[in-house]
């Protein structure tokens, strides 16, 4: 009741201020008149009474001010006045305002963008009910240091029923396959899951139904659930999609449900999002009816829900005990040397993976940038504050408390921060999608990145922190200011003692230090990238198109199209024929799937004929099969002997090896003619080496090429194939042509992952490139801020010491002398900052180690170069103001106040 009254009174005061003011005046007038009248009644003369009454009142304005302060609206009004005043002030110096708001916008924008990723990946819980009880289960061979070896079906069932850890277990088995039954054949990603997967995750279907316990039929269920994306992409959002029949690798399936649009499988897959979800009991049919305990570890991992009340540590301990029990139960199957042990980790941590470090480093770096921006603004505000020393002194003399002055400075800083933060959020909105696709952050995006409540809260806190830092620095200076001194010497000191220049110099030195660290880091990455791009990869990646084909394995026994090696050879021959007919093609080749340079890699055993040993003497190399024109298509070359020819299709088994293998196994000898053996000692296959080719990089660009054996594809083929086209046209434009060539041979097949070798190379160097751009960007921003800071300081110093310079010149100092004088003062923060930056760089560059190549974290040449760049830039920045000071008219300088 009273609240309403209070609000009404306040509103009246705000809206009808003139009337309220008049009322106040009248009330005071009445009081004085009544008081005077009373005094006259008591005998005082009229004029004296009037004066006395007025004197008793005191200052009418003061009394009216106190009366007005009783209401809440006066606080509002003073806030509004402060705001208008600050806006006016900021408007009067547009340069400062624009720089300040822009700096804050960049700093906060970058922070918000990265925090939105950090929040989605590291902080937000997964979008499943009770998600903290969800874990990812896998197993390692701790004895032989082989992680993620997986489980067999019996092991999975025993873990579910006997280990007393889990309420529910769902194996997850990513796979891919050829889809037929939609408008065109395509390569899709699928995943086989347990029948309780969707129940465990609490998912509801968008259409139809999801898996039920009764779907765990022998072998695999004929029903499949599709993702929302697949429904849109492959079935054109057909509302009658339920009941549609499709084939995956010739196995028939019926669509029984569609997942909602927000659902993402919380795990790693082969390439992207699974389109098809399959389930079954994984027993019988094409799978063994009674699988052995450790014969086939078919499940790479599982998603499980812990029992209520069981934590992760306790769960791990129980699993330890369980595997000990298994060892006792099946002594022959679990050699203690291998030490097969199941392992669980929180599902969210599993999904964050390695990106945790990268994200935290990025967040740290970007906070440094914000700090830099704050320092710049604080610096500028300090400069402005010291120019207003006289004004502050006068205000203090008139009754302003330090609180008032500080409040005004904080207000200014807050306004800048809020405007900057608003700009920053807009900036972040455009940056976040870019971040989501960038190289080191290839994460399964279970939580979507976005600017949500938590991120906005972070932005608010960052803005408040910025306002505090930017506002407090000049406030400290102002409150320490000596008022009398300020009034006496006209607001400008001779030697700069009281003007806060020292504090500003410290700030600028700090900026230089941070800039140097970032410059050095960027230079190291630059050198790394240059080295990486100039490494001899062993082939010519330009104008080469590559793609992958999967000849489907027999699912339905009657459709064993490519089971017979002869059938595969026929396919390869026909395909090569088709590819050679494409206009513009110089060379065409087909090889096994892992023969794609830079990304394909395997490790297979073999033995040497002339170095027989015991069973421990199995060597390993990368073994791939290629068609005769493979090396020509890639632009690799022969070192000795000959390449494969069509004559090798039948007859003796031949092989090619690479330079590394020749050098390590047959140093100074000719390997041509020697024999190597694959298979076991009991059923060996012998191959004769007919030639040596140069090294082609296989696993990325930094690792040296492994020893490599090539077999002719007609003598040893596989279901996974890769194709290569060397073409005079632009490779990316030939993708459709390649697809058509493949489908001319078999219309049910599709080519996937079609890209040029240039793109593959770019992908492989992607992370380093990203780090370089990031660090270089930060370094440039930091250096720009630092240089601006040092220029501002120098200009300020010059204006402070104008009189002094005039005196010196009058006393005989010449121009270079003056320039040197000013430069010396400007360079001081630079040198101190460079020194601190060197130390910082020595300590911090070790965190970059995993990205560097061909350069150590502490490279003296690069450190020296970066420092020289810094000092040189600083010299340039200070030169202009120094020159202006030296060329100024000494008489005018002396006269200047």
């Amino acid at each position, binding site marked *: *009741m*009273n609240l309403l*009254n*209070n609000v009404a*009174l306040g509103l009246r005061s705000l809206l009808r201020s003139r009337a309220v003011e008049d*009322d106040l005046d*009248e*009330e*005071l007038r*009445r*009081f004085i008149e*009544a*008081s005077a009248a*009373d005094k006259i009644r008591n005998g005082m003369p009229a004029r004296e009474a009037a004066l006395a009454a007025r004197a*008793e*009142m*005191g200052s009418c304005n*003061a*009394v009216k001010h*106190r*009366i*007005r*302060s*009783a*209401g*809440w609206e006066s606080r509002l009004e003073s806030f509004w006045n402060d705001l208008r005043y600050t806006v006016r002030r900021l408007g009067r110096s547009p340069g400062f305002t624009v720089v300040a708001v822009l700096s804050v916008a960049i700093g906060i924008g970058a922070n918000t963008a990265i925090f939105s990723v950090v929040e989605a990946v590291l902080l937000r819980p997964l979008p499943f009910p009770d998600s903290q009880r969800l874990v990812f289960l896998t197993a390692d061979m701790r004895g032989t240091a082989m992680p993620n070896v997986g489980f067999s079906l019996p092991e999975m069932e025993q873990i579910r029923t006997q280990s007393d850890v889990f309420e529910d277990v769902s194996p997850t088995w990513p796979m891919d396959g050829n889809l037929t039954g939609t408008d065109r054949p395509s390569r899709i990603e699928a995943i086989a899951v347990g029948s309780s997967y969707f129940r465990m995750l609490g998912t509801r279907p968008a259409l139809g139904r999801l898996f039920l316990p009764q779907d765990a039929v022998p072998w695999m269920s004929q029903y499949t659930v599709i993702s929302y994306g697949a429904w849109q992409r492959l079935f054109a959002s057909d509302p009658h999609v339920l009941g549609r029949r499709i084939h995956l690798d010739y196995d028939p399936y019926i669509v029984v449900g569609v997942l909602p649009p927000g659902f993402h499988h919380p795990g790693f897959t082969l390439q992207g999002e699974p389109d098809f979800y399959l389930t079954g009991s994984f027993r019988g049919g094409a799978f063994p009816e009674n699988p052995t305990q450790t014969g086939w570890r078919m499940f790479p991992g599982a998603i499980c829900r812990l029992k209520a009340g069981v934590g992760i540590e306790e769960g791990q301990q129980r699993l330890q005990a369980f595997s000990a029990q298994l060892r006792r139960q099946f002594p022959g199957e679990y050699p203690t040397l291998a030490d097969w042990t199941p392992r669980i980790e929180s599902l969210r941590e599993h999904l964050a993976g390695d990106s945790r470090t990268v994200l935290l480093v990025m967040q740290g770096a970007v906070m440094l940038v914000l700090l830099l921006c704050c320092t710049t603004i604080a610096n500028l505000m300090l400069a402005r504050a010291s120019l207003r020393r006289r004004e502050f002194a006068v205000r203090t003399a008139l009754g302003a408390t330090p609180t008032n002055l500080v409040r005004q400075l904080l207000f200014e800083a807050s306004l800048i921060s809020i405007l900057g933060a608003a700009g920053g959020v807009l900036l972040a909105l455009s940056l976040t999608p870019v971040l989501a696709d960038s190289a080191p952050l290839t994460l399964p995006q279970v939580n979507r990145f976005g600017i949500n409540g938590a991120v906005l809260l972070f932005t608010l806190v960052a803005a408040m922190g910025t306002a505090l830092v930017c506002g407090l620095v000049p406030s400290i200076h102002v409150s320490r200011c000596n008022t009398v001194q300020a009034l006496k010497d006209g607001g400008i000191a001779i030697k700069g003692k009281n003007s806060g220049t020292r504090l500003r110099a410290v700030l600028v030195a700090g900026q230089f230090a941070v800039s140097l660290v970032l410059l050095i880091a960027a230079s190291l990455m630059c050198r790394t990238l240059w080295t990486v791009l100039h490494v001899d990869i062993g082939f010519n990646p330009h104008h080469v198109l590559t793609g992958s084909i999967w000849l489907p394995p027999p699912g339905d026994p009657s459709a064993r199209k490519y089971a017979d090696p002869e059938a595969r050879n026929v396919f390869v021959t026909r395909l090569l024929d088709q590819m050679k007919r494409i206009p513009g093609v110089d060379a065409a080749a087909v090889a096994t799937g892992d023969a794609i340079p830079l990304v394909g890699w395997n490790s297979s055993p073999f033995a040497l004929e002339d170095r027989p040993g015991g069973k421990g003497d199995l060597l390993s190399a990368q073994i791939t099969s290629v068609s005769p024109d493979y090396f020509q298509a890639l632009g690799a070359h022969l070192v000795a002997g000959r390449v494969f020819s069509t004559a090798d299709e039948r007859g003796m088994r031949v092989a090619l090896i690479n330079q590394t293998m020749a050098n390590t196994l047959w140093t100074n000898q000719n390997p041509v003619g020697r024999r190597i053996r694959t298979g076991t000692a009991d059923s060996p296959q012998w191959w004769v080496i007919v030639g040596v080719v140069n090294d082609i990089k296989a696993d990325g660009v930094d690792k040296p090429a492994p020893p490599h054996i090539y077999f002719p594809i007609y003598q040893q083929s596989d279901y996974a194939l890769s194709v290569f086209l060397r073409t005079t046209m632009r490779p990316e434009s030939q993708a459709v042509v390649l697809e058509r060539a493949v489908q001319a041979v078999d219309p049910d097949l599709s080519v996937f992952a079609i890209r040029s070798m240039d793109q593959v190379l770019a992908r492989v160097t992607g992370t380093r490139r990203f780090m370089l751009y990031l660090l270089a960007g930060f370094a440039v921003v930091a250096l720009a801020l630092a240089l601006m800071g040092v220029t501002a300081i120098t200009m300020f110093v010059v204006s402070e010491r104008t009189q002094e310079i005039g005196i010196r010149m009058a006393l005989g100092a010449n121009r270079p002398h003056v320039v040197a004088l000013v430069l010396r003062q400007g360079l001081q923060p630079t040198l101190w900052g460079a020194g601190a930056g060197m130390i910082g760089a020595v300590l911090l560059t070790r965190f970059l180690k995993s990205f560097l190549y061909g350069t150590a974290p502490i490279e003296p040449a690069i450190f020296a170069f970066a420092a020289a760049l810094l000092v040189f830039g600083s010299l340039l920045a200070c030169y202009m103001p120094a020159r202006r000071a030296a060329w100024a008219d000494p008489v005018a300088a002396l006269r200047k106040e």
Partner: protein
Amino acid sequence: MGERDVVQGTLEMLILKILALEPLHGYGMAARIEQVSQGVFRVNPGSLLPALARMERAGRIRSEWRASDNNRRAKYYILTARGRKALLTETETWSRRVSAIARIMEA
């Protein structure tokens, strides 16, 4: 603190008491306080008027422009129900404190 100022913190209570008898305008209250206290207390307008404004915002009194003698209007202050309640509690508190002081002083 002047010699004739009211005891610190009691101004509002005194105003409430004065207004309990009849509504008054600003000077009327000042005069009444001086008169009833027999000259011991003297409130200056710089303290009285702001106190009245505060009490009005707190809802203890309300104001009304009325025609006073010589046909000019003056702002009269009237006690509200809330103010009456406040007067009772503050009187009680004050009595307690005064008795306590008296006991200490006579001990």
